[in-house]
């Protein structure tokens, strides 16, 4: 007998033992996985422990109705945000005139939401008259936390809240305008595309007005770069075509390095749409 306790000339040497043993384990695992015995009544993989049951969402198809419902929800995001911003009492003194602009923009968004709901109703669809939760969760709530501060999350309030409110408004208007432009490629009917862009064009004008308010004069019309941060300055007309890229919004208290937190916004895609099964809570 050698050191491995197997005779060299024995039919059961170490190599053969591992081969046979490995085959047995693999076969058992395969049979267990495929088996429909009492241990796996539904033919599922055997599990250890208790797994809570889950219910998948229904299949969502981005139909014209879903796209218009999503656009409406974005209008309500803007309406709600402007309402909150107006309640902050920031527009006083030299900024008093800005309140009129914000009120006008809010009224425009209300008109847009009403127009979209009208189109949906006319086509026998179900309207969606509330803000998009996903947009609130991803962009607006974090933005407001950065501006107003959030003790629980350890976020200090911004040292320039008025500037940040203007930056957020520009971001939201740009997001709305881009959403309509993006949805043109998804809407099936030409008349709906035109209706959507009629609204999107007005959101673009809002963005141009805000960009001029933030970065006034001839230097703020075309694209330019901030010398300190190296980031693009707000521009009334950033380029020859409407962009569909992400929108960077710098908000909050400046860090020791002098930078604000950058929030990147993107148009609502498949995971943020107001599908037919979604209801306003």
């Amino acid at each position: 007998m050698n050191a491995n306790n197997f005779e060299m000339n024995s039919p059961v040497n170490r190599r053969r033992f591992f081969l046979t043993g490995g085959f047995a384990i693999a076969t058992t695992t395969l049979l267990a996985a495929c088996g429909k015995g009492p241990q796996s009544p539904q033919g599922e993989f055997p599990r250890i422990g208790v797994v809570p049951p889950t219910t998948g969402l229904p299949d969502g198809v981005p139909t014209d109705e879903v796209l218009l419902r999503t656009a409406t929800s974005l209008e309500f995001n803007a309406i709600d945000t402007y309402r909150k911003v107006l309640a902050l009492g920031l527009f006083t003194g030299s900024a008093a005139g800005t309140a009129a602009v914000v009120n006008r923009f809010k009224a425009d968004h209300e008109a847009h939401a009403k127009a979209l709901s009208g189109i949906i109703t006319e086509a026998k669809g179900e309207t969606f008259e509330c803000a998009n939760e996903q947009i609130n969760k991803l962009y607006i709530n974090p933005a407001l936390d950065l501006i107003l501060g959030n003790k629980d999350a350890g976020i200090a309030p911004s040292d320039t809240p008025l500037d940040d409110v203007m930056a957020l408004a520009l971001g939201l208007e740009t997001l709305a305008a881009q959403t309509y432009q993006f949805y043109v490629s998804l809407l099936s009917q030409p008349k709906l595309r035109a209706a959507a862009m009629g609204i999107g064009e007005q959101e673009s004008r809002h963005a141009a007005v805000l960009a001029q308010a933030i970065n006034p004069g001839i230097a703020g019309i075309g694209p330019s770069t901030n010398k300190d941060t190296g980031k693009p300055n707000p521009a009334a007309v950033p380029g020859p075509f409407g962009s569909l890229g992400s929108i960077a919004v710098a908000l909050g208290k400046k860090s020791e390095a002098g930078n604000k937190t950058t929030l990147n916004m993107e148009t609502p895609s498949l995971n943020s749409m107001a599908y037919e099964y979604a209801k306003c809570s």
Partner: protein
Amino acid sequence: MSAPTTTAPPKQPTKSDIAILQFAHGIELAMTALYAKASAAAGKDLKTVCDMFGGHHLAHAQSLAGLLGRSSATTQNASFYTAFVTAASSGSDTELAGTFLSLENSLVKTHLGVLGTITGTDGAQLVASIIPVQGRHAAVLAGFAGKKGLGDILDNEAEPLDTKTYPA
């Protein structure tokens, strides 16, 4: 709402799309030429704006030409250019800006009409990327035209351009 269609809209411009996009192309070429005229007549700041916006219209024309290929308009819309060349090349900066504010608003309405008619998605996406920029042009020009009210900047009461008034 109607059930989702099972037939995807065409990507390329259809025959009827081409005629509509040719008109838009001719207008964009004419706008480029009108801005060049205005640039020569405008003061420093407005000249900067005219050069920038004229460049944008040239980009729009070039993109439409790229989409239409051999079907693109070969020249600018002569009747549109003739109708506005005098107003676009004379007067104070405020008057010049007022002329172009009116033209940009008309172009926005024209392109919205184009978008509501054409079926091909390539053309629709291109026109949809042009419309917001021309709206922004109008918002900027309103300031140069001395329009201080928000309604003057945001509201667009202009009529779209049509092929009967401005045949190619």
